[in-house]
């Protein structure tokens, strides 16, 4: 996978799992999320951190995760072996990113991993993190996947709590999303913690998809299918996207930049969106064409 493709890969569902639980981490790919986030931070008891690191190290170096992205949520700053990327907890400034990246560079050299192969993402958990979202997004162009809002801490810092509908998160979500899009990186929503409130989870996922998020952090395999379903394009969207991409390729070969598809004017600005629809459709098992 090229560096750009790795940065921009599909990340609809990013499932957290505690690195303290070997039975979970050994084969969580069977639930087929887009990304797994092995948590060394809050999900691991303070006196179990070493054991969790040990288990995770061996899982990452021996288990074939079959194409599922492996991210690690670290404690403040730390180094992981063999992960695809690092989720930086409580990220507030570009400096936090730089610090982690410096550690990663040294670790990549020490453990013989290709330089630049370990990606990073920032978890924004405070108002300061949200205000600095743009500089965080730009802090490591080669490694930065994007940013995720972390609702638990953010709500506390904002002196509020969870409300159905999520009005309390509107400012944080919107500001982070705008910063991420301006910087050209991805943007992920926070977890939904009530596992029994399937309808609430569904509504929140629909809302963040409508807002423009790339995906959502998850805490249970049973949330995965719902996210994938909501992020699946409709058959009409897939047909339109396919027409646009095909017409673009044909017209490009002829040297034409602006053309019409079904009576609508299409130019290069439409292409990334159409390609993303095809990618989502393929990942959802709804598209098996050759594009």
């Amino acid at each position, binding site marked *: 996978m090229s560096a750009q493709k790795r940065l921009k890969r599909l990340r609809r569902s990013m499932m957290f799992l505690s690195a303290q639980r070997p039975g979970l981490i050994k*084969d969580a790919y*069977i*639930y087929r999320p887009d990304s797994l986030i092995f948590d060394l931070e809050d999900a691991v008891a303070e006196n179990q951190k070493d054991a969790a690191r040990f288990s995770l190290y061996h899982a990452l170096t021996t288990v074939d995760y079959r194409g599922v992205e492996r991210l690690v949520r670290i404690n403040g700053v730390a180094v992981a072996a063999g992960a695809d990327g690092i989720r930086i907890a409580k990220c507030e400034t570009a400096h936090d990113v730089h610090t982690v990246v410096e550690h990663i560079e040294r670790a990549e050299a020490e453990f013989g991993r290709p330089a630049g192969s370990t990606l990073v993402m920032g978890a924004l958990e405070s108002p300061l993190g949200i205000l600095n979202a743009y500089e965080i997004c730009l802090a490591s162009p080669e490694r930065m996947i994007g940013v995720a809002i972390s609702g638990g801490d953010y709500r506390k810092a904002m002196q509020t709590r969870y409300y159905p509908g999520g009005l309390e998160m509107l400012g944080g979500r919107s500001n982070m999303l705008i910063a991420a899009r301006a910087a050209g990186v991805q943007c992920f929503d926070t977890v939904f913690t009530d596992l029994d409130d399937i309808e609430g989870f569904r509504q929140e996922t629909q809302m963040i998809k409508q807002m423009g998020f790339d995906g959502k952090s998850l805490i*249970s*395999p*049973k949330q995965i299918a719902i996210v994938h379903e909501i992020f699946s394009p409709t058959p009409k969207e897939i047909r339109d996207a396919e027409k646009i991409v095909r017409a673009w390729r044909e017209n490009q070969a002829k040297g034409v930049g602006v053309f019409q598809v079904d009576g609508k004017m299409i130019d290069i600005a439409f292409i990334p969106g159409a390609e993303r629809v095809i990618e989502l459709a393929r990942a959802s*098992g709804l598209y098996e064409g050759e594009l």
Partner: protein
Amino acid sequence: MKNAVNRNIPDELLRDGYEVFQGSAYRNGDSYQKAAPQARLRTNRQDSKVLPSIRAAIEAVGFRDGMTVSFHHHFREGDYVVNMVMKELVDMGFKDITIAASSLGQAHDPVAEYIERGIVTGIQTSGIRGKMGEVVSQGKLKTPAILRSHGGRVRAIEEGEVHIDVAFIGAPTSDVMGNARGKGGKSDCGVLGYSEVDARYADHVVVITDCLVDFPNFPPSIQATYVDHVVVVDEIGNPEKIASSAARFSTDPRDLLMAEYCAKVIEATPYFKDGFSFQTGAGGPSLAANRFLEPILVKHGYKLSWIIGGITAPAVDLLNKGLVDAVIDTQDFDIAAVESVHTHPRHYEMSTSQYASPSNKSAFVNKLDYVILAALEVDVDFNVNVITGSDGVLRGAPGGHPDTAAGAKCCIIVTPLVRGRMATICEEVVTVTTPGECVDVVVTDYGIAVNPNRPDLLEALQKTKLPLKTIEQLKEEAYAIVGRPDPLPFKDRVVAIMEARDGTILDVVRQIDTPV
């Protein structure tokens, strides 16, 4: 001699009419003369059959050394009856006793000592677990234990392979004449279907109850016409272990993933239509499949016609929601099932014979569309083991597994690919309890394999997005994770015979060479 599932059966076992397994349909259509119990005339007035103690009943039936006693397992791990009766027999000095139970569990650990002392010399059962499983695996039982499916047990009794001298039937309620019910009392187990055949075929029938009720205790599960004596004791079982308070609905995401696959397999296969019939085992993923079945039924506007088997809350739930017309019950696993069989007009009791026996003219299993079953191991020939653990020790029960697998149009086995460090999908199972020819689909957390002898099901499932793999692929994936196990260190001595439901020898279990 090798049998049809490629198992080597020692020639010395092939006597007294014993044959090797030659395929599930080998004996279809065979005729046989039914065995008959010794019976007695009662021409005089009768007021009561109640005797003061188990000992008095043992004396009244004229118990002798070498006799066979039978029990049911409706009280599951809460049963007190087996231990009470066996202790009395041992205290009275009897020896050379054969226990022919519908199943035995850890509740019966004290029997292991009687085996070691050479007092109990024969065991015929479905399940064998705990200490009893260990001592039998160590070769301490004088004769090989005979393991049968529930249906196979009925057949063995009806064909006279096993003759019950005295049936001791624990009953939650009985009247003075022995009309016994599974319903009511303090040890309520709902139904008494396993004992129906014992009552009909035993020379002597003793009902043991802890709740004597007014005559007539109707409608009875066991009719007084078969009963010789009634004994009232303080407790026949521990109610908390007889029926669990809540159905254990798994929240394990792995179980739920597999359960969802099972429901999707059902939805995609040809027998899924309005009015199909269904059974699940009581294990985590099998049970959870009920949860995923419901939305699929609603989506298609379908209803089940009937559910059979060991009944749990999810089946009762479907009945109460009007999503199944009738529940026909051989055993109750939880309080919801026990309560429902008391109250719901479309929840019926049936005998094990009617449920699963190959020796009658229409067992329910023969008309079953889908069954979902668990497994300890499945091999690349789709043979299933549910009796021996990865250490080769007896610790399970075929139960209705071989009966339903043989009868159902689509038998789905659900099991995780690995358990701990053991591969569940393997090259060769330790013991064949259900032949691979009866197994159609194997659902694991890593993918789904279809038996090559069911190309119709494979074709149907290929139209879905379910992760289909070959059984060999699953086996290789399992071995890639946990490694290939070393062969188990068995001695030559046969400690148990696994009978196919038609009475032929499906497999043997040999003595384990390591201390347990």
